[in-house]
């Protein structure tokens, strides 16, 4: 697995190689948890099963990577598990770097795996067939975007604010469906879409759709596209939701989205009024999305999109390539777009 690896990366990637090597040398408590997770999800998935060994290597390497905790822009996803000098496990509320002095985080990355965690690595197995190529991409994308999908904090664009964005969008574009779920079925749209948001649609959408979606996340530099797509799907199926009388029927509406085309749906959901008469986004009222409604939706989404106004020259070229739909981003594009902007949280 550790083949000759000549690299021109900066020092930060050195730990990637060490992390990969570390798989063979040390066993961590969380290793078995991750292996089980891979066996339950990736190895059973009709699209990802050939890659189970690579996915396992990716998540194990990530868990041994000490720098992940610092690289995560929104902070650690959860309170880290720490073993003190005597080896006993203790939970501390301090930041990871303070912990270092006294004890060892478990696992070294500070990210405690949860059920379905290995899903994050699955789509990357399509992009490269070797650990050395796939791991840097996976690590960078995880630290910049994916970690937010399961981070519970008050940082912007972490899970809580993403869910809030989802709910607001559903209420404004499919209010009757939302009400129907709330009052008639004693449920909420979030209950069904939560899984999509946390996994970034891995396992729900086909691999190619996930990669296209994550491309746009890369291009917009915002993981908010995930709840936005989730809201778009709810709005798309609002009629079916309204027709559902029992929880099982609602479950059916949400259970199979394998035929959804993520990008056309996103584009028409976000830009319908700009695309003009040809791209009518019909709300459940059957009328064309009114300018007012569009403005309301734009107001929700705009702060996120506008914050990324400062994009460099590289990014423009890469963005336009992405939006012309030229397949998943190549490794080069990904490297360029993932250069850290400014200092890491160090």
């Amino acid at each position, binding site marked *: 697995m550790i083949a000759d690896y000549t690299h021109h990366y900066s020092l930060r990637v050195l730990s990637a190689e060490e992390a990969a090597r570390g798989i063979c040398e040390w066993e961590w408590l969380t290793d078995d948890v991750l292996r089980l997770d891979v066996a339950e999800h990736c190895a*059973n998935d009709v699209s990802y099963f050939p890659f189970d060994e690579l996915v396992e290597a990716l998540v194990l390497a990530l868990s041994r990577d000490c720098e992940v905790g610092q690289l995560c822009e929104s902070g650690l996803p959860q309170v880290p598990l720490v073993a003190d000098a005597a080896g006993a496990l203790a939970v501390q509320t301090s930041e990871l770097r303070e912990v270092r002095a006294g004890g060892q985080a478990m696992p070294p990355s500070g990210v405690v795996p949860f059920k379905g965690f290995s899903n994050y690595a699955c789509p990357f197995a399509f992009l490269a*067939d070797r650990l050395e190529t796939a791991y840097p991409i996976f690590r960078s994308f995880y630290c910049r975007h994916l970690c937010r999908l399961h981070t519970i904090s008050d940082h912007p664009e972490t899970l809580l604010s993403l869910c809030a964005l989802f709910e607001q969008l559903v209420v404004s574009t499919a209010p009757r469906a939302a009400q129907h779920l709330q009052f008639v079925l004693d449920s909420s749209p979030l209950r069904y879409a939560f899984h999509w948001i946390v996994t970034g649609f891995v396992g729900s959408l086909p691999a190619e759709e996930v990669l296209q979606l994550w491309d746009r996340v890369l291009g917009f530099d915002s993981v908010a596209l995930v709840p936005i797509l989730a809201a778009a799907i709810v709005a798309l199926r609002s009629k079916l939701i309204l027709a559902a009388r029992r929880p099982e029927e609602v479950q059916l509406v949400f259970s199979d989205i394998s035929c959804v085309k993520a990008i056309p749906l996103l584009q028409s959901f976000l830009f319908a009024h700009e695309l003009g008469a040809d791209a009518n986004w019909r709300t459940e009222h059957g009328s064309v999305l009114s300018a007012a409604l569009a403005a309301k939706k734009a107001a929700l989404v705009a702060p996120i999109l506008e914050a990324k106004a400062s994009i460099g020259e590289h990014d423009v070229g890469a963005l336009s390539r992405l939006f012309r739909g030229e*397949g998943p981003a190549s490794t080069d594009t990904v490297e360029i777009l993932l250069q850290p902007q400014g200092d890491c949280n160090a």
Partner: protein
Amino acid sequence: MRRENERIVYRTDFDKYVLISNFERLGWTRSTDEDFDIYWASVHNVRGLFNPEVLSKRLRDGQVVNHFPNHYELTRKDLMARNIKRYRRERERQEQAEESLSSFASFAARKKGQSEPNLSMPQVDRVPPEWVPATYSLPNDYAIFVEEFRKSPNSTWIAKPTGKAQGRGIFLVSKLNQLKRWSNAPKEKNQQGQPLPFREPYIISRYISNPLLVGGKKFDMRLYVLVTSYRPLKVFLYRGGFCRFCVEQYSTDVAEIDNIFVHLTNVAIQKQAEDYNEQHGGKWAISDLMLFIESTRGRAASEKLASDMEQIIVHTLKAVQGIIVNDKHCFEMYGFDVLIDKDLRPWLLEVNASPSMTTTTEDDRLLKLRLINDVLNIAIQEKRGQLEGCDDDLILGDFACIFDEKPKVNLGTRSGEDPRSERNERSSSRGPRRSNSFSRTGYWR
């Protein structure tokens, strides 16, 4: 597809769910004798059906059966290899002749100061490079095989019985003495329990030891190909083909040469492996394979592979086009087994006349149900001549017509036109209707 008040009668030799379910859904009635409209037969019964000595069993007009009388020219491993070899030789000779004619014509034209005529063959019709690994029959070609074996000392060969399926009796050979497995095998017995005078016929082919690996595992592809007529040739390719994975990581280690779970991709074999997974059954969609190739090697590579696969399918059928009895009652759904090597070159391993209708997973069941549905749709309408120039997706379902030799209706030419340019035009329009059905930008969704 059902006309009003039409009762279609079917007969089948297989009680498989995917078949019966389709027949019943269409409201057809079952028969067990000569009174049928469509017969999904076993290859054994088809032999009797086309036996010239039994006139009573002749097929009436309008009856349709799912095999061609001498399909074995394609579906028996030794005959297939032989027919393709012959076809390639003939085509290469023809192409060489055309090239020298073309270069002479250019030379002559240049001498006269005229523009060079365009007599080159359209690229699509060129015979592709070798797509069947070198194959020898045992015992007939034993001596030639030994000579070839000695020329390439580090090569591996794979021995398969001509008459068996599902991977039975297959073994790898890296040293000549390993062939003793075949030569010393107990002789086959006939029905009375007496040993037959001949050893079981085998073929031995060069083993492709550098297959394309995904996740470190070897796989091959099962492609469904529907042929409704050989002359003119009309071919449909199903886009729901799938890859069949080995459970174990691939290894060229000599110690693993007898490990069938590493080398043989037959589902019947992999099912017995300890780590066999019933959720996906080792079956991977070809669209996922194309995504993987596009992501790791670029779109051009995946499109070229898709095009190469279509080429070898069409040329394989062309190889037997002249010898298959083109009975108008017949259509056939083949299972093509194709292996891709590390250089993205497709190799044809074999063609199955009766691809398995057993299903191993939920997805597999859905796929085969839809496959049979589409096959029945197309076959019946083709035989009734209802599909003239038809491109309707609704009828073709998940099939794409990748080759149609039937000349299109010509609406007449303008007088005074250069006959040579007209010939060129016609030859290019007579050419196969190209539709890259594996291409992800096209049909493969």
